[in-house]
């Protein structure tokens, strides 16, 4: 069994008066590709933000193995009115733990842009790129920080089919990287993408974890109906 990189131990999260996550326990092992699925408001984004430390747990513990680095990608990346390269370099420069100088960060930034196929637009204003290119640029910004775990909040939800495929291919590429394979945890409404990419699926409903299964089991509807009727109903509804 792989080493646990992150874990939630009976975590509950409140957003104002509303309980967004209730008593969630979850373990993320190195090399896993965990898809979080569920309807809007089910707690997928909250779970990602809690794992990333953007939201505090009201109860329970958020655990992370020593030395594990994580980065997060959002549905609509915010890029500054700078060149694509400088957006990546700024992301690296803000990573105080690494203490990179601007020159060093620039060299790494170029590598990251090459990794996502954006080296030709390195000097273009990040805001002037297409939606798909902006998401790839945000991926480069995240990847350049050399994370062990990449958290992604519906990374392809606002993209056209072509851009979706590009981003999905990059996610798969990062996860299967020979030198530095990334653990992926992402929220998605796209069950096809989940089937193609995930090794494990976590189903959330109303802030509760209703199913946590290997991808093959999750899409085995007979099995799913027995294990989690709620998840079964969701998948059937999505597939019908």
């Amino acid at each position, binding site marked *: 069994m792989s080493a646990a990189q992150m874990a939630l131990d009976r975590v509950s999260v409140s957003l104002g008066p509303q309980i967004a996550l209730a008593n969630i326990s979850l373990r993320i092992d190195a090399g896993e590709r965990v898809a979080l699925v569920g309807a809007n408001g089910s707690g997928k984004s909250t779970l990602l933000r809690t794992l990333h430390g953007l939201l505090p747990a009201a109860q329970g513990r958020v655990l992370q193995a020593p030395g594990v680095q994580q980065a997060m990608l959002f549905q609509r990346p915010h890029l500054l009115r700078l060149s694509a390269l400088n957006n990546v370099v700024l992301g690296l420069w803000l990573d*105080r*733990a690494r203490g990179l100088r601007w020159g060093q960060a620039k060299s790494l930034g170029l590598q990251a842009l090459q990794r996502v196929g954006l080296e030709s637009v390195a000097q273009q204003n990040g805001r002037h790129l297409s939606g798909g290119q902006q998401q790839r640029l945000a991926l480069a*910004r995240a990847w350049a920080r050399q994370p062990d775990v990449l958290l992604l909040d519906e990374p392809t939800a606002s993209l056209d089919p072509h851009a979706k495929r590009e981003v999905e291919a990059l996610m798969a590429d990062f996860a299967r990287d020979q030198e530095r394979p990334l653990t992926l945890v992402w929220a998605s409404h796209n069950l096809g993408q989940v089937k193609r990419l995930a090794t494990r699926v976590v189903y959330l409903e109303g802030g509760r974890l209703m199913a946590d299964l290997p991808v093959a089991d999750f899409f085995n509807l007979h099995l799913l109906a027995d294990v989690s009727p709620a998840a079964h109903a969701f998948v059937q509804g999505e597939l019908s």
Partner: protein
Amino acid sequence: MNTFSDSVLTALRLVTSFDPALWVVVTRSLAVSATACLLAYGVGIALGAWLAVSRFRGRGGVLVGLNTLLALPSVVVGLVVYLLLSRTGPLGFLGWMFSFKAMVLAQFILVVPVVTALTRQVVEDVERQHGEQWASLGAGPWMRGLLLAWDERLALLMIGVTAFGRAISEVGAVMIVGGNIDGFTRVMTTAIALETSKGDLPLALGLGMVLLVVVLLLNVLVAGLRRWGEQRPGRPDVHLAGAGGAP
């Protein structure tokens, strides 16, 4: 009607002949307002960006107070600065009363809330939408405030222009703390008030025309910047009041 048309013609002659008496006043007005706005711009942007990203007890009250100061009457500012700078006031030792510095201080106090409140609004809107992404990248509140303020520099430039419009067109504060001394603290708005009361309408009208042209140019600049900003892909809409505040 004849008086009015004669006054307009005389005023036009004064403006186009670069009458020294008129242009000294115009230059001083521009210098006072530009200095006050530059100082207020530096302070207001830093303060506004900080308010946009910081969370502390009583912040709501501070914001209500700040927004109230947007409508600060210039005569009240003049009165407060007068009390501060008067011989027996806490800043009386500076000896600034009825000077260029006193007028700059009054206009600075008048426009700092404008720059601060508008900057806070602009940066906070972006922070609300995207702040967590920058927090995720490791930017603390101060760094987020600076980065987002820098990214919204076009909107902040417009705020500067708006603040300048408020400063150059006010009369109450500079009248009280400057004293409208000829050749020393007389600026466009105080000169207009004085010349009108004396019945020298051509000079008052000439000054009024210059003041209008200055405010007009500022508004043209704001409109141009806004259009330029909207035409660029990915720019947010910027909705700010035009230049030219209440006197």
